[in-house]
């Protein structure tokens, strides 16, 4: 049997893709020791909340091959669910999590239904419209959604009796959530379910001929992405203490799609890299909002043209090529070989 002859089993290769991400997250969790500024912490918390949503988007886009420009709307459903539950029923952070995940999953399912009939660019436009539609509904929702002003959240987030509203504590909690999201996304990618999604991405007709219910699994991928978005929304609502419709309209959705493309949608490290990069780039380069939009646009075009699999995959490939050139030992071209699953090794 061939399996025994492989020195590194597939599980081993898969685990190697997760460890760097967890190692980076441990380092990130140590940052408060350097007593960073409140501004840095706030920015990092926002980035982390985005990354959680991005891990959901990466399952949809990276694995299933469906691009959604309405992902921020699903984050919004989660955020508004948290705000309304808190206002009307006094339900706090922890109970809002499953409720918002469920609400966002249901909305994700609705967004996903047209994908059964429409594909490609046409579907992207429909998801875009969904984001805009949600913003309109929220703006015209009267007192229930707080109209254009939005909703306030009161009530502290507590964990085992400790008040988590303190910036450093909230930061650590978000890092923990990011780690959980990364592990969940990793588990999906490396499960038979992840394989099924990739089969749909590669060839729907062939997938159906092999007994895969393509429609059901597409909707399933939307639901999974919705769960991540809902949780991200609760964290966002309780972090900001105030939410309004424009935060979840089409432009934030485009930013999320941009982040996942820049980082690389198929890799477990992609969402983390994309989320951090896009959040901190204007800070590092000292750009104003208009300049940063120009830079994002340029980055997106550059990534699509030069590194279609994202920055991380591009960097890893460049690194491999460099390694292959220096020592004379024969290395296989990373483009032609793969292990199981094929994305895990990069």
């Amino acid at each position, binding site marked *: *049997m*061939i*399996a025994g002859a492989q020195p590194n089993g597939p599980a081993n290769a898969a685990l190697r893709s997760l460890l760097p991400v967890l190692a980076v997250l441990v380092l990130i969790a140590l940052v408060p020791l350097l007593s960073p500024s409140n501004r840095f912490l706030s920015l990092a918390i926002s980035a982390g909340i985005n990354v959680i949503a991005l891990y959901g988007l990466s399952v949809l886009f990276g694995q299933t091959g469906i691009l959604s420009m309405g992902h921020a709307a699903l984050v919004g459903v989660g955020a508004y669910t948290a705000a309304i539950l808190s206002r009307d029923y006094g339900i706090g952070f922890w109970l809002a999590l499953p409720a918002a995940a469920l609400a966002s999953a249901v909305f994700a399912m609705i967004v996903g239904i047209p994908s059964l009939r429409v594909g490609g660019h046409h579907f992207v436009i429909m998801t875009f419209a969904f984001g805009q539609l949600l913003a309109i509904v929220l703006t015209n929702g009267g007192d229930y959604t707080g109209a254009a002003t939005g909703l306030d959240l009161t009530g502290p987030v507590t964990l085992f009796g400790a008040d988590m509203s303190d910036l450093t504590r909230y930061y650590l909690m978000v890092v923990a959530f990011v780690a959980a999201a990364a592990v969940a996304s990793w588990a999906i990618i490396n499960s*038979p379910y992840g*394989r*099924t999604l*990739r*089969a749909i*991405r*590669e*060839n729907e*007709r*062939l*997938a*159906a*001929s*092999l*007994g*895969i*219910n*393509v429609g059901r699994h597409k909707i399933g991928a939307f639901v999974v992405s919705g769960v991540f978005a809902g949780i991200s929304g609760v964290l966002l609502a309780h972090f900001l203490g105030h939410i309004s419709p424009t935060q979840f309209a089409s432009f934030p959705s485009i930013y999320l799609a941009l982040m996942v493309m820049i980082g690389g949608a198929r890799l477990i490290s992609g969402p983390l890299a994309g989320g951090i990069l896009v959040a901190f780039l204007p800070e590092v380069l000292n750009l104003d909002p208009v300049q940063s939009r120009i830079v994002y646009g340029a980055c997106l075009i550059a990534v699509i043209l030069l590194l279609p699999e994202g920055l991380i995959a591009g960097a890893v490939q460049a690194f491999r090529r460099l390694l292959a050139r220096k020592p004379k030992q024969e290395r296989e071209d990373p*483009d*032609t*070989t*793969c*292990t*199981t*699953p*094929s994305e895990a090794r990069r």
Partner: protein
Amino acid sequence: MSPILEIRGLSKQFGGVTALSGVDLAIEEGEILGVVGPNGSGKTTLFNVVTGVHKPSGGSVSFRGHDITGLAPHAISRAGIGYTFQQAMAFAGLCVLENVQIAGEHVRVNAGAGQPWSTPQALLDFVGLAALADERAGVLPFGSLRLLGLALALATQPALLLLDEPAAGLNDRETAALVGLVRQLPGHGITVCVIDHDMKLMQMLCRRLAVLDFGSKIADGPTGAVLADPKVLEVYLGGDL
């Protein structure tokens, strides 16, 4: 013995064009049946209607006594009918082994109890692709891609395998290898139906042939007799023989 697949009065219209008109065809358990006919005679449409890609305009298809008319493609596959496409295809971005793993993960009925490939590796061994297990399917040479397509269909553990021009684009050596594989299938409990217009291939593979012309069946019987049928000769060679 009752047929494994029974097609009754199957017809299909695309707008005003009749692709199939009232085709009756029975595939017997354990045989390798060939369906031949000139281009545009309705061979691929017949496959597409049976496998659920198109809904039939009329008629019925039953598999092992169960009506499967108009079921979705994935449901047809799960019922125990495997099929390959005229265009050789695989999941190009995934490696060969992963391709076969996917194909084996959505099996409902274990139809092929006598099949010698219990693992994806064993199946790759059977079709001769074991050495390429870690390659990305997108970089395979065409002949290997055809074999991978066959392996994918076999991984669904079908009781009936439909092959649409399985040798198209293959050289003689590759065709011979494919014929060798397909001939073994009935011995493993897999009934085979092949579509092709390559008569040499059909003579190698099939003891029985059915001939389609303009969406109707014009002949059905032992290969030798069908090939001697004046109607068939007329369709293939333009008559006057």
